């Protein structure tokens, strides 16, 4: 009897828990990457207890991989030495941690997953309770298999209607963050539901859970349904059966209902993710770099939309346009289906998979005075390199249209099969 997060945690805790209570629960998987693993190792060492179950630890290299400098290489070597010594074999170097977690089948409905990355919320799209943590929490879970969680209040976000052509899940979610603000869901669970969510494929649902972090949310959940089980069976290595937990007579802290049918493409403008405007208000602003990728919008379907706009055209010669598939599996598919060829013929540059550009580490760092338009989820000052650069966030379609024109462009003005 409760919201989706209360239902999942009640099953996990073996007793009914309600918002405001603290529950000690078993953790199914503990995820870290090259950036957050070293401090988790330190915390675990200080606890001084053996690793409870090495099969529940998953480590990815994605934030600066392959290592672009000696410091990153040394840090990664230290992690590899630790993994070898502890015989931890869930170790991946094949793309952005969140995408690979899903592809490899670690994420299934009802599981509790803690991650040393703030966008661990992403897995909520598959009905898993996934929360971003600091490194000490991860070290604790390595040693004990458990974590403490305060059961959050829930904001219900019910979405209805259908988006117009050229308007995508990203536009809807940016509109939500713009409406409730970057502190609007702090501590809370955002529970997305309604006919619009029901109609979405998994790659679009993921956008909502992923960006819930930017509203301060503890988790962004979508109840598992047939779309979830079909996706798990056909696109991941997950093994069923799944628990399709759903809210039961939930008491929400707040209920928001939005009809998505009147929305236009949206842009989160410099310098904060809740500074959201319809693209028409900002169109024409010159852009130096377009980056299509990240854990928000680097999936195959995102690349397909971008390619449909770029096909047979050339990007602006002075706009550096970077395409980064979220995983090697996506990269393979993009090569096999000819998407990478379309990108390259359009004058784009395709990089290896990873988080480099999104955190200003490598593969798309911004110079002072440069302005980027990207499909990622965060536009903090200095995020992609120079603190004197500006970052604008939008959909893959808007990013591709912007690359063609060299200035922020409404994708609906470019003829394409997808828009």
């Amino acid at each position, binding site marked *: 009897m409760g919201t989706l997060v209360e239902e999942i945690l009640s099953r996990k805790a073996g007793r009914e828990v309600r918002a405001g209570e*603290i529950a*000690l629960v078993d953790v199914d998987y503990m995820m870290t990457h090259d950036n*957050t693993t070293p*401090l988790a190792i*330190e*915390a675990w060492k*200080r*606890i*001084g*207890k053996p690793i409870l179950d090495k099969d529940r630890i998953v480590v990815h290299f994605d934030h600066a991989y392959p290592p672009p400098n000696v410091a990153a290489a040394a840090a990664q070597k230290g992690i590899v030495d630790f993994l070898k010594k502890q015989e931890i074999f869930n170790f991946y170097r094949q793309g952005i941690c969140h995408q690979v977690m899903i592809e490899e089948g670690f994420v299934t409905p009802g599981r509790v997953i803690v991650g*040393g*990355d*703030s966008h661990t919320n992403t897995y909520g799209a598959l009905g898993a309770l996934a929360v*971003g*943590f*600091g*490194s*000490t*929490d991860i*070290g*604790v879970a390595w*040693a*004990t298999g*458990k974590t*403490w969680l305060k059961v959050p209040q829930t904001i219900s976000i019910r979405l209805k209607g259908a988006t117009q052509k050229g308007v995508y899940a990203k536009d809807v979610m940016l509109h939500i963050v713009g409406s409730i603000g*970057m*502190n609007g869901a*702090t*501590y809370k669970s955002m529970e997305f539901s309604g006919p619009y969510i029901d109609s979405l494929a998994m790659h679009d649902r993921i956008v909502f859970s992923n960006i819930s972090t930017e509203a*301060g949310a*503890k988790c962004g959940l979508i109840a598992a349904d047939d779309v979830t089980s079909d996706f798990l069976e056909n696109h991941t290595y997950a093994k069923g059966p799944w628990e399709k937990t759903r809210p039961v007579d939930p008491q929400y802290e707040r209920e928001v209902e939005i009809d998505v049918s009147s929305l236009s493409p949206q842009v989160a403008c410099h310098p904060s993710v809740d500074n959201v405007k319809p693209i028409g208000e900002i169109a024409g602003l010159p852009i130096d770099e377009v980056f299509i990728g990240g854990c928000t919008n680097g999936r195959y379907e995102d690349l397909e939309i971008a390619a449909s706009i770029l096909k047979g055209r050339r990007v602006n010669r002075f706009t550096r346009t970077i395409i980064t598939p979220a995983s090697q599996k996506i990269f393979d598919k993009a090569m096999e289906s000819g998407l990478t060829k379309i990108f390259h013929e359009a004058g784009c540059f395709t990089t290896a998979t990873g988080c480099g550009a999104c955190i200003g580490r490598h593969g798309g760092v911004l110079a002072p005075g440069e302005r980027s338009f990207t499909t990622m989820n965060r536009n*903090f000052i200095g995020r992609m390199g120079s603190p004197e650069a500006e970052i604008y966030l939008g959909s893959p379609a808007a990013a591709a249209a912007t690359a063609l024109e060299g200035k922020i462009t409404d994708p609906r003005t470019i003829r394409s099969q997808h828009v």
Partner: protein
Amino acid sequence: MSRVWKFGDDVNTDEIIPARHNITVVPEELARHAFCEVRPRFAEEVQPGDILVAGSNFGCGSSREHAPIAIKASGVACVVARSYARIFFRNAINIGLRVVECAQADELGDGHDARVDLASGRIMNRTTGKQFLADPMPPFVLKIVEAGGIVNFLKDHDIEELQ
């Protein structure tokens, strides 16, 4: 006396300690750079037992634990804020920094003399004579904080003992 150091809303982790000082994880070194840009004299003048007071969303931004470590190592006895960013709040508890939420945090002004009783949640402003209540810490959380953080707690206890 416990001096109040007053901050506003949305103090982010980079204001608590800029990323360029996060290379070390030695607490005392981190404390030397606490608030170095927004309150340059803080690190030099803060006394053990002082109280940090802030508005809403304190600690927003990065999940790096350097920020609460820097505050704790500077000797601050307790942080009182209207609200915290989620990961910062958790990290603070886990490393043993006392953080309480209080809707009346604004009643404490910069330089005031104040006392916080964590068990009862009673906050006494000795400068104005006013008393008010913070949200009490759940016993679960208090156990972690009193042990000096979750790592210390787990050295002597099993995690099940938290319940």
